[in-house]
């Protein structure tokens, strides 16, 4: 028995030797990864982004118009309970508002003006440069599109494990706890071409990938611009293009992002 144990330990020794030989390779890979995510390369790659003007978005009519446009175009149901009230626990939403304090917890201090704390801030998927949801998804049902940096979502591949919801630091993902079509039929009905979902899958904002391919702007941006005083409240564009509208604003105005400390590289910018 002792003999076999010695043999085992010997083999284990060889194995660890093998692993330590492989470590330099791993090192090289990690180095490559860190370079990949560096700022230089990111700038060259196409990355769609949005700049949101928080002050302009204090107009409730504008925000409602944007959210309505999005949710109508994408057949996002309004989930209600038996009494017809909004079921907050099972809500599905792609774009909505949160209080400033909840959106930017790191920017809040005890002396911050009350009116700012209570400001409603438009929130949606950040289409992160290093999205945690993509990293954790076991089926690649959510992935980062190379061509424009959109974090895409395939509701037909999603198995509904909700790992992405645990991983997303922004609460941007919704799960269909219930049969969504049931609520669509009760509400505004099924509109247009966008496919409805089945129960048991996760969904979120896709930057209107479908509309973009038709040469249109995202539905929320289009709707917000139509509201009086809503011009440029939501601005959409490509970060890799130095002359894009988003870059022109980013170069001029003081903007912030949500939870930058986590390293996810959010691509929704806020003018404070």
């Amino acid at each position, binding site marked *: 028995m002792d003999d076999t*144990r010695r043999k085992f330990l010997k083999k284990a020794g060889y194995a660890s030797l093998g692993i330590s030989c492989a470590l330099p390779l791993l090192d090289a890979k990690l180095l490559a990864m860190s370079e990949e995510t560096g700022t230089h390369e990111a700038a060259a790659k196409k990355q769609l982004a949005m700049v949101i003007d928080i002050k302009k978005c204090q107009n409730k009519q504008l925000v409602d118009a944007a959210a309505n446009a999005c949710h109508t175009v994408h057949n996002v149901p309004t989930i209600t309970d038996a009494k017809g009230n909004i079921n907050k626990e099972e809500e599905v939403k792609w774009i909505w508002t949160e209080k400033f304090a909840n959106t930017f917890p790191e920017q809040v201090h005890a002396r911050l003006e009350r009116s700012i704390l209570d400001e409603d801030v438009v929130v949606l998927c950040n289409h992160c440069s290093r999205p945690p949801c993509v990293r954790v998804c*076991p*089926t690649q049902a959510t992935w980062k599109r190379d061509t424009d940096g959109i974090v895409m979502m395939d509701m037909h591949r999603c*198995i509904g494990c909700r790992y992405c919801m645990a991983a997303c630091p922004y609460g941007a993902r919704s799960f269909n706890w219930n049969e969504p079509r049931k609520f669509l039929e009760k509400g505004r009905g099924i509109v247009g071409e966008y496919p409805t979902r089945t*129960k048991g899958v*996760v969904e979120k904002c896709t930057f209107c990938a479908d509309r973009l391919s038709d040469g249109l702007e995202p539905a929320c941006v289009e709707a917000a611009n139509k509201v009086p005083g809503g011009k440029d409240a939501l601005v959409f564009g490509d970060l890799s293009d130095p002359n894009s509208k988003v870059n022109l604003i980013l170069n001029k105005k003081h903007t912030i992002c949500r939870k930058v400390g986590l390293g996810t590289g959010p691509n929704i910018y806020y003018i404070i």
Partner: protein
Amino acid sequence: MLEHAFKGSKNYWLLLGFWGIIIAMGAGAYAVQLRDGLTITGMSRDVSWGFYISQFTFMVGVAASAVMVVLPYYLHDHKAFAKTVILGEFVAVPAVLTCMLFIFVDMGQPARVLNVILHPTLHSVMFWDMSVLMGYLVLNLLIGTITLDCERKGKHYPHWLKFFIYLSIPWAVSIHTVTAFLYAGLEGRPFWMTAILAPRFLASAFATGPSLLIILAVIVRKISKFDPGEKAIRTLATIVTYSMLINLFFFLVEAFTSIYSDMPHHLHAFEYMFVGLHENGVTYDVLVPWMRAGMVFSFITGFLMLFPGIRWNLKVVPYVCVFIICGTWIEKGLGLVITGFIPSTLGHITEYVPTAPELMVTFGIYAIGAFVLTVLYKIIIGVRERRAGYGADAQ
């Protein structure tokens, strides 16, 4: 060998029937969930994982703890475990099975679950978790059945099996480590994102699993002629004692960093678990009595196990073990997953309480585990008793 599973006393069939009834109830509740969706559970947008994933996490620990009998026996030639080792391996089999079932019932689209294999995703910890769990199930089935079959035939197990036995040791560590990594790698959840999570998981697992083994060994001793041996049970009790103390130490380490650093994100989780959170005049504290009870169980049992008079007293130690399991279950099967979601990433506090159908599905899965365990243990007892009987005949 399997024939032992098909003939047994009235009590054996009654026990299987009892598990069967619970399984049927669980299946009924699951059918409702399949029809209506996960809306029938208490989970929500904010607390998107609940009881199922919690139970999965807890049972991975029970499964991994087989290594606590395999390692001393095969690596250190601890002879007292000669008859216990199979008990550990045959706990691991139903434990992994329940783990997989808990994951399965948590899926929103269970019919698509094979997508995990069809689109293997190396950067997803969940893919690795599935792989190591599958592997562990196969390893334990293979090792357990072959060693028991060889024992039945009165010969030594084949030499090639040794490789798989050794492999199963780091593999057991891997299943719980990878399960901890599911949580510990999420930057958005400060409560989980701690390096101590995997060591803590292992320590609590090595306290829980051997505790269960002690209880099972004492039961087997009582109801059959097969005696796993007092020495083996004592060694298990020593293992439980060390693991429990290490587990408590790890908990204190974690609590210290969170509480002493006084960083709100880390503090909130502990506040939620042990005193409750307050917001706009509302108190959120459903977990508090549970977590406090769990802590009392864990610290008192940890203390009691220090005394050889208790630890090695076969009449007392199984009861202590019951409370050890309760304590670690509350910690891992209740507090750990849910608290990670409270408050949510958007700072909202949504509490979670499992619903009746959700609990029924959970009990159903545990009953499947218990059913398989009963059958496997019946086979072990059958083989052992018969061998003992043959020995007597020969003389």
